[in-house]
Structures are given as C-alpha cells and as structure tokens.
C-alpha cells in the first residue's frame, strides 16, 4: 500500500521585530482512520499552507465560510492542535518546538476567547475562580494583591466586584462573554485569538462587546486575530483581512484595499452576499452555486474552480500562487497572472 506523506517543504522565515505573530506555510491535517487496525487512509486538509503576519497592536480579521478552517488556524497557532507542517513564530520564537515548561511560560502571553459563551465557562466554578484560577497558577500578581487585581480586571470588562461569588448560569450571554474576555485578559496577554466572539449574541449586545474589545486593545496594546464569518463586524474591527477558502488564504491585504477593490472571485461573491440594511440598495448579487467541497478530497488546481464564475482551463489543473497586486495586497488567482507584480520594495 502506498504510504501517505505530508509534504512539508517551505522556506524558513526571517523574523521582523514589528510582528507579534508570523505564520509561514502552516498546515494542519487531521488523519482519517479506517479498518480494524485504524490505519490512516487519508487526511482532512483543514489548514493547507497558510502564511500571514500580524503587526503589534493591530487586528487581523479572518473570514470564510464554516468548515473552511478558520478556527483550526487559531487553535494551531496557540498549539491547542499540533501543527502538521510550516512554522508559527510568536515574537520570533517557534511555538511548536518548545518544551512543556517553556510552553507553560509562554501560555499567558497568548490567549483565546471562544465562540460560545454558554459552553466555555465551567458551570461549577464561581466567576472569581474562573477569572482568577490561571492568574494564581501563573503567579501574575503577588498573593496579597490578588483580590484587588481580580476586581480591577472585572470592572475593566464591565463586571461588578460582587459578581465574583456568582455562577455562570446567573448571567446573560453578553455578560458571559465579558467574563470570557476578563479571563483571557487577566493573564496580561500580548496576543488574543477571538474566535467568533460575537456571533452568539444579539445585535445590541454585539455592539457593546465590540466596543469593549476595542477599548481594551487601545489600553493594553493588544494584538488580535479576529475570526468571524460576519463581514460587517470584521470590517469594523480589523486593520488587515485574510479571506479563507477550503484551508487556504485566497486574498490578504489591508481592510481599505480589500473593501475598496476585492480581487478574488470568492471575495467578490462573499461581499455581495452581505445583506445591507437599506431597502433601496438593489445590487447585483453573485450567488455562489453549490456548497464548499470536502477538505478530505479538495479539487485539483485552484480549490475554488468548482464554484467560480471566471473559471479557465488553467484553473482546473494548476494551483495559483500568491501574487502582490498592490503593496501588501495579495491574491491567489490565475485571473491576475498577467497583471504586473507590484512589490513593496
């Protein structure tokens, strides 16, 4: 039987001190096991070679349909999943080769806020314990300052000090999300992955949480990776945006560039699908046919060619390479093969 191997060739990255996080050709494959011996028969290519970097104090938005691997990217960066290939540099340090003790020391610096505030809080712990557990574990503050520190963090996130003895079921969705934010923030992180932090909330509560995240970013000089499928929220909060499709980035650039002129056909379709709260705006919607193909058996060539309106012969056989159309604005599509490359240097 043919042995399945993961291709793991990439050119190592040179660290730029401006960047908090640098991701280079990151891959995460989940094995599919079958038969009595649980032999690996194939891989689900959840993340298939992604590269980007995030500057200190900025927010990168990651958008895409469900099942395109956005969450897996976030988790692999934090080493909640082991990578299958590529590199993740956090302040120039490869995260996935650290020893257990080193990893433990690094954990407080990178935090995550989960999507569903209803299932990510332990129902058996009071709020003070949820927020404070990791603070005590990592000795963030001396013992005698511990109580004041927790109170301070909680009030910063819009919670009252008397909430400390309450349990998660006594809170509404918006308040629970505040608790999750307080928990992440209490460790004084540099980098926070926000995995769809507002999609489970009402519109009016969404606004409160987004404002809170922005205020905290300014105050603590935080760097966010903001994962969401809601483009209007991503547009509001992000500085740079990456659009994902089936485990790869199809377009990457600053918010202004991407929203002014989306280049990739998928980005265009995604943008035209957003409902606009104005009954007068009748625009030409590009409706994508069908649904996302299986990441276990992605299409050959360009992964998007099965649903693409501008599909050419070339797209079916040859995978496109990232191309810099404007400084800092990359697109992965054969349509732009003939455009002149515009390098920053």
């Amino acid at each position: 039987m043919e042995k399945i191997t993961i291709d793991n060739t990439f050119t190592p990255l040179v660290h730029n001190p401006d960047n908090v996080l640098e991701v280079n050709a990151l891959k995460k494959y989940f094995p599919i096991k079958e038969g009595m011996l649980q032999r690996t028969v194939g891989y689900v290519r959840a993340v298939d070679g992604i590269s980007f970097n995030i500057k200190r104090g900025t927010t990168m938005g990651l958008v895409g349909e469900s099942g395109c691997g956005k969450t897996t990217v976030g988790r692999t960066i934090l080493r909640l999943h082991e990578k299958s290939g590529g590199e993740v540099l956090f302040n120039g340090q490869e995260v996935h080769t650290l020893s257990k003790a080193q990893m433990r020391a690094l954990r407080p610096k990178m935090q995550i806020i989960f999507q569903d505030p209803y299932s990510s809080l332990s129902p058996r712990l009071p709020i003070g314990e949820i927020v404070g557990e990791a603070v005590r574990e990592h000795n963030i503050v001396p013992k005698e300052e511990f109580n004041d520190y927790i109170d301070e963090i909680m009030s910063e996130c819009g919670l009252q000090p008397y909430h400390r003895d309450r349990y998660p079921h006594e809170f509404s969705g918006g308040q629970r999300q505040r608790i999750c934010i307080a928990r992440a923030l209490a460790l004084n992180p540099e980098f926070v992955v926000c995995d769809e932090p507002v999609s489970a909330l009402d519109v009016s509560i969404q606004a409160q949480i987004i404002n809170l995240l922005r205020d905290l970013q300014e105050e603590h000089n935080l760097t966010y990776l903001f994962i969401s499928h809601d483009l209007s929220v991503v547009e509001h909060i992000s500085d740079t945006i990456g659009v994902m499709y089936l485990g790869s980035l199809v377009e990457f650039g600053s918010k202004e560039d991407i929203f002014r002129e989306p280049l990739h056909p998928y980005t265009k379709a995604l943008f035209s699908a957003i409902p606009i709260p104005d009954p007068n705006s009748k625009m030409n919607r590009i409706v994508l046919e069908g649904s996302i193909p299986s990441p276990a058996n992605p299409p050959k060539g360009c992964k998007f060619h099965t649903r693409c309106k501008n599909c050419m012969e070339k797209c079916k056989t040859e995978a496109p390479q990232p191309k810099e159309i404007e400084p800092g604005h990359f697109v992965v599509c054969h349509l732009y093969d003939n455009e002149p490359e515009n390098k920053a240097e």
Partner: protein
Amino acid sequence: MSENKETKKSARSANYLSAKESRRISRQNRKITSAMEKKYRRKNVPESEYLTQMHDPRNVVEFDDLHSYFFTDTGTVKAVDGVTYEVPQGMTVGVVGESGCGKSVTSLSLMQLLQRPQGQIVSGSIRLNLGDKAYDVAKMPMRAMEQIRGNQVSMIFQEPMTSLNPVFRIGAQVDEVIKLHNPTWSKGQVKQRTIEMLEMVGIANSEGVYRMYPHELSGGMRQRVMISIALACNPRLIIADEPTTALDVTIQAQILDLLRGLKDKINSSIMLITHDLGVIAEMADYVVVMYAGRIVEKGTAQEIFSNPSHPYTIGLMASKPVINRRVDRLYSIPGKVPNPIDMPDYCYFRDRCEQCVERCQGKYPPEIHLTDTHVVSCYRYWDFHKEDK
C-alpha cells in the same frame, strides 16, 4: 468592602422568592391553566364558536391585541403583551427585535405551538383568512387546529440541524406531511409530490436525497428540505423563524433568493422573523419592530429604514456595523431589557432611552400614526397624535 456586601444583599433580595410564595403562585397558575387546557382539549366543538370575520379581506392574518403569557413558578411572564398587526396577501412582513422580545412567541401563538400548559393565549384574537371563511385561532380547539397547521399555515424553524428527525430518511419526513393532509392519495402519488417539492427547492439529486438521512446533508441543504416540508401543502402563510441565522452568508443568499422566488410561485405570504436588519431590508415589504412583548414601531420597509422614529429602532440600526460606513465607535443601547415578570407601567424603553420627554413619566404611550401605515409608540411624536383626533 462593607459597601460591597450591602450591594450584594440588595441585589439578591430584589429577586428573592420564598418557597411558600412560590408554592402559592404555582397553585394559582395550575388553576388558571387547567381551565384553559380543558377548553382546548374538548372534542366536537361546533365551528360557529371560532368562526369570525376578517376586518380586511385582503389580509391573510390579523393579530388583534394578542396577549400570550407564560405562567411560571416565579410569576407570570407577559411574553406577548398586546400585539396588533396584519399580514397582507402576497406580502412579506418582517418582525425584528432582540431575543426574548416575543417575536417567536407571537408566531408560535398563531401555530398554537406554545409550550403548554404554562404558555397560553390569554386574550385577543388571531384571525386567519381561509379564503371563503375566517377562523379565530385563539379560540380554536386542538382537533380543529390540526387541520390548519402545516396545511394552511406552516413554519420553517431556525435550526435545520435539530428540526429534522435524525432517524428517518428525508423522503419519509416530507411524505408524512403530504400524506397527513391528503389522506386519499396513494403512496406513488405522495412520493411523486415529494420529489417534485425537493426539486422545487433546488435539490438537484432529488431521488438520491429522498433516500438519505439528515446527517448526510449540509446545513444549507437541510434548510432546503425544511422549506420543502413547509411548502408541501401550498400554505397561505409561511412563518420563517430565523431561517438563515445558523447559515453562512453565501448560503444565506441562496436561501433568501429561493424563498423570494417560491413565494411568488405558490402565491403565499411570508412572516419573516429575524434579528438581522439586513435580511429584513432585503426581503420585507412591511416591518414590525418589537421590544419587550410589545410593538414599538411598524410601517413599510421604506418608512422604517428611511425614517426610523422610535428611539429603540434608531438605536438598533446604529448598533449594527455596516460595510462602507465608517464609525469610530458603535452605538450601544445603554441598560438592559426590563424583567419580564415585573414590567413597569410606564414606557418599557424609558429607562434606556436617551431622548425622554416630559410626558414619558406617564403611562405606556399609545399608538401614534405618523402616516397611514407608519405607527410608533413614543411620546416624542405626541403632536401627531392630536392631529389624528
């Protein structure tokens, strides 16, 4: 520190209910609900009892001062507290509001699907137009309702993942509805109709899907199946309760396109419940904005979006980020929704409102007509009210 303790105590005592008090309430509730249940479960009820007249024969449904309450052990929750609006024939009416504002309960009242026995329609009427006659759904007994539900009025639920039964094939689940409402049809006829319905909602491989189980389909496909079940009997009214909330934007666009096309094809009306103002703007002809169990504003989509009048509607629109509209900070409505068990007797929105006028100290504001179709419940427009009289 002592200050902390005091706030803690007062916060707790506000919601405190002794066991004795709770028992008293639940006994009282049981008395009320069991009388209502008895009436609902009667058999052989004469049709004249729930026969009624439409106020305007062009409407499919008229809600008239509907009150739906939940009798819980901690008190009565007035989930719907005096709601009046109508759905005209062939139109789409969008209902917007935060979760818990009663928009779903209104539609469940129409389907008589409230969680019984706690949930009950207490007063008011829901007039349903059946073409040659009209029924008052609020007074209908269980047996009569079974003929209407799924046949004349049907519903598309929010979660396509949980509203299909995982142990039955798709075909069997669509067949069931058709067979129930057309008992004389043969098996072959039913199956043919099911395949036809699946094709109509854009499922290409309809013969294959007929034999599949729900887990083999994606979210968008499942929602298509749900829609085909809802449309199977050519209903006069389709209630779509957050039909696209669980779906991706690209799939959402597909489903909305589909709903719009199908509505014209079978000539029915849609009652679209959602919290996404963008979806409403795209689909709805009329918009109803609900807050804490009451309607705060209603009008045509054009009026609501170009001239939002109630402070709540204005706040709701400002708090949603919109593509290509740069704001530094999103507006967020201060405070939170009042406790549904203990509603104030003044305007429910007063404590969160930034545009209060003197008159707001008084009772709950009446409906004020800004135009023939645009109605708002807010004292800021009191001048219009006088002209009205």
